[in-house]
């Protein structure tokens, strides 16, 4: 033990902090550009969003410092407590919080609002890390199963882990009707995969998604016939044993079920959900003045940026309000328009670098808890990046989730800051752990 250990920044990963700071600063500059108008030019004007964001950033710095001061063991010890507490807050907010623009996910304090669901992310990550790092826990035991009871016993841990992330998902979706906030918890599947979940689950998920898209784009009959042909062709490569025939048949039946099920589900979706899918897949006629407006204007903003962009504060699409929610979920449009291909690529690469850095750090942890928590951070950040940027460039459906550290909003900035800095603290502490 050296004397430095008690210094605030002892062992703190400077690269991560640097990227974090860069993203927050760039984010603020773009928020300023997005809401910029000649009437309010003072950056401290708290009636404007960039003024408020400065306060949020100040708060985030305070939070980060606080997190670094607290003993790392605190997070391990109180993991379940955080989880439980915030879960209760999420349940309570629709009843206690004030309704803002039809949304029931906010606690309001004057001009400022807090969304507990945002903070549920780090709590869930803590709980999941704590559960999976238990010595006796293994995700998906690989020993041969012979009986149904074995099967349940071996999968019990997986099911429990899925429940940890599924509970907030369901509560936020059902009670608060915040699809964006809820769907993020799916990201933890990546953590589960890293900790041993069979790749088959992920492949199954990916193939299902592919089938889902195909069955919306193609005619069901054609698709099922194509699938049958593929199944028959598969016997060219697979031995025609009785067992294989049965397996292929079951897969074919399941795939056909997905196809038919998808159409059934699609038909029973709510209209606005249908149109979101239609917009993404270019199904039918999309009215660019109505349901297609957001995505189209977002694409126009980004697409008109060219290589170098139009210059800071020179974006006409974003500055003149053609793009909706350009300071929060569509902040990437401002980047694309004013900083061009160069700027938007840099932002994506910065976020990616941060995520890869987190993975790198996770892998160097001695404690399972820290590693699992690190993967949770990487997964959540990646999920946000992929969905947020994807929707502005027309590769993902429009789901309202923020771009990490970039979008306007205190809850998201604070929640990402907490999420990341707990990991930075755990990482800084890694050398002190004797395992």
């Amino acid at each position, binding site marked *: 033990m050296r004397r430095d250990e008690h210094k605030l920044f002892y062992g703190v990963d400077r690269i991560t902090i640097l990227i974090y700071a860069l993203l927050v600063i760039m984010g603020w500059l773009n928020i300023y550009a997005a809401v910029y108008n000649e009437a309010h030019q003072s950056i401290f004007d708290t009636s404007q969003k960039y003024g408020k964001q400065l306060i949020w950033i100040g708060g985030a710095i305070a939070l980060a410092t606080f997190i670094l001061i607290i003993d790392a063991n605190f997070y391990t010890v109180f993991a379940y407590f955080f989880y439980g507490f915030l879960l209760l807050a999420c349940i309570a907010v629709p009843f206690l919080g004030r309704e803002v623009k039809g949304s029931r996910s906010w606690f309001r304090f004057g001009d400022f609002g807090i969304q507990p669901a945002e903070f549920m992310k780090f709590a869930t990550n803590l709980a999941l890390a704590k559960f999976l790092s238990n010595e006796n826990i*293994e995700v998906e035991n690989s020993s041969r199963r012979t009986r149904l009871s074995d099967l349940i016993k071996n999968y019990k841990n997986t099911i429990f882990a899925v429940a940890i992330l599924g509970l907030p998902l369901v509560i936020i979706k059902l009670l608060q009707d915040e699809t964006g906030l809820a769907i993020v918890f799916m990201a933890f599947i*990546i953590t589960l*995969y*890293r*900790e*041993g979940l069979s*790749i088959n689950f992920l492949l199954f998920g990916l193939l299902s998604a592919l089938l889902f898209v195909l069955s919306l784009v193609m005619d069901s009959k054609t698709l099922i016939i194509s699938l049958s042909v593929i199944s028959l062709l598969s016997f060219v490569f697979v031995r025609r044993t009785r067992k294989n025939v049965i397996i292929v048949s079951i897969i074919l039946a399941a795939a056909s079920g997905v196809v038919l099920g998808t159409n059934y589900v699609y038909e029973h979706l709510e209209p606005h959900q249908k149109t979101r899918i239609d917009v993404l897949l270019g199904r039918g006629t999309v009215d660019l003045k109505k349901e297609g407006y957001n995505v*189209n*204007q977002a*694409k*126009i*903003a*980004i*697409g*008109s*940026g*060219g*290589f170098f962009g139009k210059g800071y504060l020179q974006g*006409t*699409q974003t*500055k*003149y*309000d*053609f793009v909706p929610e350009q300071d929060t979920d569509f902040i990437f449009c401002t980047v*694309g*328009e004013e900083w*061009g*291909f160069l700027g*938007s*690529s840099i932002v*994506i*690469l910065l976020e*990616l670098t941060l*995520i*890869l850095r987190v*993975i790198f750090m*996770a*892998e160097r942890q001695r404690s*399972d808890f820290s*590693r699992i928590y690190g*993967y949770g951070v*990487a997964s959540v950040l*990646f999920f946000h*990046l*992929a969905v947020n*940027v*994807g929707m502005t*460039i027309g*590769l993902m459906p429009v789901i309202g989730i923020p771009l990490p550290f970039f979008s306007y909003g205190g809850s998201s900035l604070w929640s990402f800051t907490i999420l990341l800095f707990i990991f930075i603290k755990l990482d800084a502490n890694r050398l002190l752990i004797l395992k």
Partner: protein
Amino acid sequence: MSKNAQLADRKFIIGGFFILVALIYIFRLFYIQLVDDQYLKDARNNAFRHRTEYPVRGYIFDRKGKLLVMNAQSYDLWVTPNQVKDCDTIAMCEILEIDKKEFLKRMKKARQAPNSPRKESIFEKQLSPAVYAALQEKLYRFKGFDVQSRTVRKYPRPIAAHLLGYVGEVSKEKAAKDPYYREGDYIGVSGIEKSYEEALRGVKGVQIVMVDVNNKTKGRYMNGMYDTLAVPGKALFSSIDAEMQEYGEKLMHGKKGSIVAIEPSTGEILCLVSNPSYDPNLLVGGKLRAKNYAMLQMDTLNVPLFNRATQAMYPPGSIFKLIDALIGQKDGVLKTSTVYPCHSGYPPMGGKPKCHAHPACDLTHSIQQSCNSYYSYVFRSIVDQPAFPKFKDGYQHWRDAVMSFGPGTKLGYDIPYEKPGNVPSVKYYDKVFGTNGWRSNTIVSLGIGQAELTIVPIQMANVVSIIANHGYYYVPHVIKGVGTEKKLDTMYTRKHYAYVTDHQIYENVIDGMQLVVESGTARTSKIPDIVMCGKTGTAQNPHGKDHAVFVAFAPRENPKIAIACVVENSGFGGTYAAPIVSLMVEKYLKGKITRPDIEKRMMEVDIINNKNLIPTKHH
């Protein structure tokens, strides 16, 4: 730990997957930002508005610097539909004097393509001063409406309507073809407004203005770096003499017909009168123009929109004998001493064409007497001359020679919708009579300017101009200078030679023309102290009374004016056409009229309404 070691490789799969997704996104960005330029266009459509700055249309001056055409301010009402809020429709309808249905119709039109709810479009064109005043006062109450000014044409003198033409809205077809014009723009539709459109219109300026999603102006794009200033239209300096034009129009009052006067030494058109006419100020202004144009168009009796000076094709009648006389001499088949018999008609064809009683005459007197028989002989001697063993070659030769004087061709002057007139072709007669069905005698009435032969008044004036110049002409033109530098197209400064260029041949014919005025068919039109050389004619009119024609130039030495006049349905050329020409010539050369009685009589004659007619003598 062994478990973890086993699973540690999964970090590559996870990291690889993250990198893959990021690369796909960057590639996608590359495509929409650098490859596909549709988004850039869409962004411009969204946020840029091109505001057109209309240039001032060029003024038009007469040859002495008097203003013929100028501009006046006019005001249009524009609307941006999605900015219209709580509009007091009833009040607006009252001001514009329209009903609510019309109001809604116009709003709908302003919203639909090619207009857009976010863009301005015209709601009412050219507001009357009263409406403008009423609107101006209350405009603050009508959000989304805006009054913008534009210039329209104004004519200080109500003359030369056909010549000047008018300015109207560009047609859809033209707007689609020519990128300069947008629907709703103005363009010269006829007259010199049309032929000099490019010089007159100038160049539109464009301001690129940025707007927000509510179409609110947010300033100039790049501080106006890409804006262009409007370039004002160029002034036109016309060769028209406003006084002559006005005088000619007065003389033609109550008559159908035209007067065209040309300065032979330059080809400049001094006046171009076509009557019935109209006040050019009638065809100014949107609603007003539409109404008046319809009114003028419906007048099928007087056809006031018809420019007789350039478009009415008449059989030339006896004035054509001048051309025969020139060609005959040139070909050596006619001498000044040549005498042909006339027994009140052309003897070889049993007295057809007919002639009046007169003493036997030589070349000079044949012009003075306008002998039909004489020119039947001359015509046939040209067509059947020994140089052309086949008479069709002879006819072709005659036709070519005639056309070198203008008839049957387009001269290429600067007034649109030129009509060439007609000199029938060999092919035409082959078709009418059969290949072997005609000889020179079949078509002998061509020699006296009849049959299928037609000629336009401006061509008549040009023929006289050629005679005055002894063999050449400049392409007639009404504009002698464009812009401050007063540029003139070189096509108007090049001499065009007729078939005949020998000085003496012309002198022989001019001798006869002088006699026409001194003691011939136009002797009542002699001008004191001025030697005018002319020729009367009667254009046959199968639909009624013949048209009178008179052509002349003056003075004989160093001619200043060549002029042609057609007075429809007035019979013999000496009765009205010649006195009118003599008055025009006197006015031009002397600047005053010494024969007020003739002037008064000519102005009072109303052939259209059969009033104050002069009893015609037959001779």
